[in-house]
């Protein structure tokens, strides 16, 4: 009972102001047998139905992608989070994250799947009325219909509310006539259903509509020629007096911008989580290649420089995985609380995600960054072969890049997440002063629990939080309400926030594993945690230095703060080559990523 109450009070962004106990977080090792079986079935599906066809998918072979989507629907993959009364499985948010994680390794299919199950389906699930849900959700859940999401226009990307697409009420007031141009529309080429954002007459804000392809008046440009995810259908879509019945308006007039933002919130956490299996696959392939490839008479996996890359792949993947499922469970717990308080389910789900919008943005930014770093290292492990289309790394590298751009660029998300923290501080939701009182009390932290054998790491993370809050507080002191104009500073602060959250997630996961099975069997995870943290501290220190130097011209003042930063980021006594060799040796021995969660 006590534990439930503790869980209930977790707040979005609260991790910076509290020091949670490991028992309060969820770790992926705790997925039940049913969820693990779903993960394995998803892996089997992509092994059987996607991987053998990647080249044909990338060549945009007519009908191939929609046929794979239909098969995914038959297997139930498209309706995991749709309630059972609308033809879905009614599983938890974190189960949906798990499926997104596994699908992640499929490049173009990942995008088609994500666009359909996320931004294509969720607007109806969360904002549709009963008639709309009953009419459309079973078709989307089964894969009979495929969906896409039409928000972006040539002149409105990140500034979504600047869209020019118009909706005019017909004279008989039975239809809206939608006219406008949308671009970068994933799944457009085969979609049966379009979620379209348009402004009714001279409204200030957007309104969302459910548009069936059969309504007519829809034309498209050819497929875009893209750098990566070449097999994902991406087209410009033109609506030319498309006749949409008034009952197909989603939610209320001018509520479209809110819908767009909230749906992207959900989309982005799944997108961040939806890199994990791609990272694991690159690590698997890189390990196998490094074991097979002989130079100077030995496998290149025996070289420290290669071991360093393999171990970094493992540590970074471990990081995003730990953070994703921690946040996913926070959302599920929040949803349960809201439902228990009497909120309707769809509202509870929306508010649950909204509460953790900071974590959602962290996971989107970090997941996409990590995937790109790992893909880059994968190419490097493959050497010359990494640059050849004959090996899998070229595709992995190209396919990874878009994740930093779509569903809110990483820059927008970085500023957004710091903006949200600042807002919570200024609204009094979090008390910055209490947290920073350590300046006056000599920076000595009382341990809140015994974190042996990671007590040094536990302290380092507590100090990282202090460092992050110190820089944030300084920025607020200097810029006040104008902090949003200081993008460079915000981006540096976001780096500290992200690294703190992810490092803490790895630490808490490992402490929980130690608690469950002892330090000896958690040895690999202890190493992964330390290696991740070492990097996180270095990155945070650099970001903190840069932010402070951008803000403060007075050298003496700056020096005193940099000294504080040095003390708060003093996690230096670590032999990273020994750590990385230990981790990589396990990978080399197993010839793959060093641990398996779902078989």
């Amino acid at each position, binding site marked *: 009972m006590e534990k439930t109450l503790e869980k209930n009070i977790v707040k979005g962004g609260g991790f910076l102001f509290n020091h949670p106990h490991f028992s309060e977080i969820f770790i992926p090792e705790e997925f039940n*047998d*049913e969820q*693990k*079986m*779903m993960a394995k*079935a998803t892996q*089997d*599906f992509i092994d*059987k139905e996607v991987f053998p066809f990647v080249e044909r998918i990338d060549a945009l072979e007519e009908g191939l992608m929609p046929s794979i989507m239909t098969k995914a629907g*038959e*297997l*139930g*993959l498209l*309706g*995991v989070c749709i309630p059972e009364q609308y033809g879905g*499985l009614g599983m938890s948010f974190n189960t949906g994250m798990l499926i997104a994680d596994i699908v992640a390794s499929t490049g173009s299919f990942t995008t088609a799947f994500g666009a359909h199950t996320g931004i294509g389906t969720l607007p109806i699930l969360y904002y549709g009325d009963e008639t709309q849900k009953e009419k459309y959700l079973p078709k989307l859940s089964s894969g009979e219909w495929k969906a896409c999401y039409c928000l972006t226009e040539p002149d409105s990307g990140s500034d979504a509310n600047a869209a020019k697409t118009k909706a005019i009420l017909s004279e008989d007031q039975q239809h809206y006539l939608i006219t406008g141009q949308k671009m970068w529309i994933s799944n457009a080429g085969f979609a049966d259903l379009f979620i379209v954002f348009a402004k009714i007459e001279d409204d200030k804000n957007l309104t969302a509509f459910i548009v069936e392809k059969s309504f007519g008046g829809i034309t498209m440009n050819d497929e875009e020629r893209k750098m990566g995810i070449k097999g994902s259908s991406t087209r410009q879509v033109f609506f030319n007096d498309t006749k949409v019945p008034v009952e197909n308006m989603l939610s209320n007039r001018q509520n479209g911008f809110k819908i767009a933002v909230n749906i992207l919130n959900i989309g982005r956490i799944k997108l961040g989580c939806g890199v994990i299996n791609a990272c694991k696959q690159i690590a698997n392939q890189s390990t196998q290649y490094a074991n097979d490839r002989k130079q100077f008479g030995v496998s290149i996996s025996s070289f420290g420089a290669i071991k360093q890359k393999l171990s970094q792949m493992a540590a970074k993947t471990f990081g995003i995985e730990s953070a994703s499922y921690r946040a996913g469970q926070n959302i599920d717990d929040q949803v349960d609380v809201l439902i228990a308080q009497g909120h309707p389910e769809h509202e509870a789900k929306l508010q649950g995600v909204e509460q953790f919008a900071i974590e959602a943005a962290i996971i989107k930014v970090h997941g996409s960054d990590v995937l790109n770093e790992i893909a880059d290292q994968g190419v490097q492990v493959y050497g010359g072969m990494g640059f050849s289309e004959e090996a899998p790394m070229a595709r992995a590298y190209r396919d990874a890049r878009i994740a930093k751009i779509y569903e809110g660029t990483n820059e927008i998300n970085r500023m957004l997440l710091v903006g949200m923290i600042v807002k919570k501080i200024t609204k009094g939701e979090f008390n910055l002063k209490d947290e920073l009182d350590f300046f006056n009390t000599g920076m000595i932290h009382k341990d809140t629990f015994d974190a042996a054998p990671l007590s040094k790491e536990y302290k380092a993370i507590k100090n990282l939080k202090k460092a992050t809050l110190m820089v944030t507080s300084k920025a607020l002191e200097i810029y006040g309400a104008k902090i949003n104009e200081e993008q460079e500073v915000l981006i540096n602060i976001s780096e500290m926030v992200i690294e703190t959250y992810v490092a803490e997630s790895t630490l808490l996961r490992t402490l929980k594993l130690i608690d469950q099975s002892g330090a000896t069997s958690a040895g690999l995870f202890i190493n992964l945690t330390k290696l991740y943290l070492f990097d996180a501290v270095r990155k945070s220190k650099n970001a903190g230095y840069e932010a402070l130097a951008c803000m403060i011209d007075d050298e003496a003042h700056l020096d005193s703060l940099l000294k504080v930063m040095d003390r708060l980021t003093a996690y230096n006594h670590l032999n990273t080559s020994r750590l990385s060799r230990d981790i990589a040796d396990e990978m080399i*021995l*197993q*010839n*793959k990523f060093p641990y*398996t969660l779902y*078989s």
Partner: protein
Amino acid sequence: MKILVCITHVPDTTSKISFVDQDTVFDKTGVQFIIGPYDDYALARAVELKEQLGGSIMALNVGLAETEPTIRKALAIGADEAIRINAEPKDAFFVAHQIAQVVKGGDYDLILMGRESIDFNGGQVHGMVGELLGIPSVSPVMHLDIEGNIAKLSREIEGGKELLEVALPIVAGCQEPIAEWKIPNMRGIMSARSKPLNVLDPFEDEQKTVVENFVMPAAKSGIKMIDADNVGELVDLLKNEAKVF
């Protein structure tokens, strides 16, 4: 049509294999377990036959509680219920004896299993079950159709293929391409938790074999590349090092 599908709980094919207790016990630490791949084909064909002819599928496993996730997977794929004989599968005869006892109480038309497990790969259980029950046993079965009371099947034999017609009931040890293995769908996975999984105590039996110890196969030696002009050296290596003639 009443079908019994016997499934094994075996290490994933990519597992690292090692032994403990003076090499007498397989070390399960960190090993992921799966349904035996050949059993998977047998189960897939059972599901197809049930769709075609109606009836029911019982999955059977001889193993301790740790095998239940594997059994649930069989239920997710399409078995209607399952039995777990609560015992460590000591050897082929022990397992065959357990299966035979279950069949005696169950009136099954078809007893399907993989042609062999992929852990000990004995390939003996189907033959023993047939013998213990006094019914035909065929392996490795690559096609299986049922017409009335007759099983029409084909199996691989030395240098060819044998077509057989056998009156039911029979035991069949299956392999591909008898059916395409099935991925459990999400709804099947969810419904598996509510399907009955009955745990039975083992039927008494004497242990006929004892494992003295396991030995790992020698590591593969590297590939030697011989220049195409140097046939003499190749012949010498084949004769004196590889000893192929």
